[in-house]
């Protein structure tokens, strides 16, 4: 917290000019915008690491079991961090947006658990390496929905890019599919995160 003297008199003064007043409004409101970049950067890096973990496993640098463990650990840690960022962003605010934030967060969880359950049910019929593509595609759909609802072309474009990468990955033969997914998907999210940061 800033150590500011209670200069009530100075702060009671009107802003220097209309342009100054508008600048004050923009500065205060920008401060409150959620840091979307953090989510994108976090998940972009996680995604990249998961892709590389599987790529390495397919080339025999380490076992597939290690890649599974790495994936689980990364996803659990990133989910926990996402929840922490979400709770911190909404602290001290009560009302409809807090409720919709919780619904949105739980929505992701349900969508991902559901995708996992469906993939497991069909596990005998499809390639194991196709599993991540399903999660990626669902994530892309959710990003696109966020973009549409939040009037964010950037998120919408990120959602489209992620869906496209999932489809391209599905048609890419192993072992390159994991590389396409990791670098393409993770890279798309990192770029989205950096663009969000620049727009702030």
């Amino acid at each position, binding site marked *: *917290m*800033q150590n*500011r003297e*209670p200069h*009530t008199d*100075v*702060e*009671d*003064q*009107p*802003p220097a000019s*209309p*342009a100054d*007043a*508008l600048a*004050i*409004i923009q500065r*205060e*409101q920008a*401060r*409150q*915008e959620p840091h979307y970049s953090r989510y994108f950067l976090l998940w972009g890096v996680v995604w990249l690491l998961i892709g590389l973990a599987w790529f390495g496993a397919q080339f025999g640098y380490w076992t597939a079991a290690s890649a599974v463990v790495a994936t689980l650990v990364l996803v659990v840690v990133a989910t926990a961090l996402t929840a922490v960022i979400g709770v911190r962003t909404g*602290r*001290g*605010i*009560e*009302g*409809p*947006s*807090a409720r919709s934030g919780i619904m949105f967060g739980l929505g992701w969880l349900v969508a991902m658990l559901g995708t996992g359950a469906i993939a497991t049910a069909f596990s005998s019929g499809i390639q194991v390496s196709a599993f991540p593509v399903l999660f990626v595609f669902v994530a892309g759909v959710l990003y696109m929905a966020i973009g549409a609802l939040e009037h964010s072309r950037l998120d919408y474009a990120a959602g489209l890019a992620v869906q496209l990468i999932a489809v391209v990955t599905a048609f890419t033969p192993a072992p390159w599919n994991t590389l396409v997914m990791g670098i393409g998907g993770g890279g798309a999210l990192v770029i989205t995160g950096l663009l969000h940061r620049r727009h702030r």
Partner: protein
Amino acid sequence: MTELDPVIHAQARLRVTATLAALDDGDRMTFPRLQELLGMTAGNLSTHLRKLEDAGYVAITKTHQRRTPVTFVELTRTGRRAFEDYTAALRALLDPAADPSEVPS
């Protein structure tokens, strides 16, 4: 020339109003969170909130959450409209050509 609302047209109260206006309709913010965002002392913030409350722009609710007293602050409908009018007036001052009711000087 467009009159700027004197209740909002003071640096501290403009910062308070802009911060509260960024909340979604129906959302409210705790006093400590508002204080943290603005970096104002509790006394100073209270003084300005009282002026906004007297004008009917801000509603202050004191309640309890798990036996701890919590103070919520939110913009009233009147306050939100006053803030919208204020920003519209600022824009008109900056770009009189955009507002047909304004005669450029």
